[in-house]
């Protein structure tokens, strides 16, 4: 067991911004019956990560689960003061099931930071974060960055049930105004969400919109961003192998001026211009 996190190859001062880091698990607790939060003690080069970037996680073998590839995961929390990285995840397959077996003190090998993260609008323009499900995890660190940059944040979070609305207190602590909609309360259908977003725009609180976690919400956000001529960004997911841009496994189709173009989620993304996205 390593007592302090170490870096296999990269360091901040080097020309090699991406490294393979062996981190120590600080905690790995269930936050509800579906999601877990893993906190890692991470070395300085890993903590240069920006909201929207991701790490490529080497999940261990655990019982019958022998994940072969790394698993890409967006960063939920970056705490440069404490030297911590947080990942909020749902146990959905062999990789995340194996990840859930890690205990405090265990080593965890991560590669990153990878990809291109979010960009905030200039001049302290107010922004809206629109997320559903695990998309909350991807947008959460953007609230912190927006608070630091002076962009007022409204977070509109959607979930199946209020029990799965996570990190509301954290968002509020960052100064975000938090609105929630859920299926069980009958408030999450696209018509109602659209009405709330139009109200936010009318109130001058939506100069840019960021979304993750739902195809329906992405298409809604895209339509409204076009209608109001505001900036929009979407964080995408795709199955990955290398995570570094070499293998071209993780492509998605985008609409550009020249026609349909395939881009790598790992390298050109995972955050993309909302206008060019075709599906989440």
């Amino acid at each position, binding site marked *: 067991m390593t007592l302090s996190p170490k870096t*296999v*190859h*990269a360091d901040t001062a080097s020309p*090699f*911004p*991406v*490294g*393979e880091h062996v981190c120590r698990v600080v905690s790995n607790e269930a936050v509800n019956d579906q999601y877990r939060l893993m906190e890692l003690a991470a070395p300085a080069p890993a903590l240069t990560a920006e909201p929207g970037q991701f790490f490529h996680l*080497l999940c261990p073998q655990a019982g019958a689960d*022998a*994940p*072969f*590839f*790394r698993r890409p995961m967006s960063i939920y929390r970056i705490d440069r003061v404490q030297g911590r990285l947080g990942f909020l995840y749902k146990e959905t397959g062999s990789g995340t099931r194996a990840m859930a077996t890690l205990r405090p003190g265990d080593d965890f090998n991560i*590669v990153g930071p990878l990809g291109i993260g979010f960009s905030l609008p200039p001049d302290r323009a107010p922004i809206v974060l629109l997320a559903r499900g695990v998309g909350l995890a991807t947008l959460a660190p953007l609230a912190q960055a927006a608070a630091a940059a002076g962009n007022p944040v409204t977070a509109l979070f959607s979930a199946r049930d209020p029990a799965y609305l996570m990190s509301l207190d954290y968002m509020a602590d960052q100064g975000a105004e938090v609105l929630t909609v859920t299926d069980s309360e009958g408030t999450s259908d696209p018509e109602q969400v659209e009405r709330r977003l139009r109200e936010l725009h009318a109130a001058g609180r939506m100069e840019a919109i960021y979304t993750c976690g739902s195809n329906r919400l992405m298409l809604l956000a895209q339509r409204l961003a076009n209608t109001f001529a505001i900036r929009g960004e979407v964080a995408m997911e*795709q*199955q*990955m*192998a*290398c*995570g*570094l*841009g*070499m*293998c*071209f*496994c993780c*492509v*998605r189709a985008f609409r550009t001026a020249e026609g349909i173009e*395939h881009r790598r989620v790992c*390298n050109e993304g995972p955050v993309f211009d909302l206008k060019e996205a075709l599906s989440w």
Partner: protein
Amino acid sequence: MVDGPIDLSVRLGTLALANPIMPASGTFSEELARVFDLDLLGAFVTKTITREKRSGNPTPRVAETASGMLNSIGIPSKGLANFLDEIVPAYRAFQQPLVASISANTPDEFAQLCADVSVPGVAAIEVNISCPNLEEDGRAFAMRPESTLSAMQKLRAASDKPLWAKLTPNTGEIAEVAAAAEAGGADAVVVANTILAMKIDVHTRRPSLGNIMGGLSGPAIKPIVVRMAYQCARAVSIPVIGCGGIATAEDVVEYLLAGCAAVQVGTATFLHPTAMTRIIDDLAAYCRANGVAAVRDLVGAVETGPLARTDELLAQVY
């Protein structure tokens, strides 16, 4: 033990490499320069270049299997012009030889592309004759010795650069195919490409790949490809470059003992981006610990005579 420095250099025909470790085509690009100093490698091998732009296959393009990777990427390529205008100049920043991997649909198109990539800055050309030949109903050139020979002869006539023939493991006669590549003028054979394979999701009942079938790589295929490399090394006098499931320096030593003069590392880089540099360090350590002063002394040094002592073998196994 060896006290002095270990000589890791190898020679592939006229081409000298600082060490025998290079990436496999399709598992490497200049993006890896964000992780380590690429000049630590023996050579660079590009993704396969086609003349025209290609967008590749439908997703999902990849699936994991027991100790392996199944892929059907479909050779997305930015085309010849991008290679000449962007890729070749980008590698001028590095010292090690650049190997251009190429593919085409017919022998004549293949030969023309081979001529077009024979430019300064390209040290060798890896001809991916594992790809489908449209004139033979989509059968890969390297499936049969005859089609390998005729394709290689046209390629040879098109370029003065060292030509490496990348063979497919999906043939039942790989040694004969390797010999045909040599007879056609190849300067080396790369053994081998991925093994045609398939995976089905039992919940959705759908193939795990958008293209239904794909190529298997990774540790799962290593013993099969070591066998093929051994067979090819006995069948040809040109260098054999081993490629299949290498993840450690021990895997490299195995391929060298089987008769390979150098190796390519692919899937392992996806799991550990620094796999190749770690392997180079570990290979030197293996040589030092085992009294091997020059890594080329391992090439073809597999012992196949009668076993003298069964107890020594058992001690190794346990």
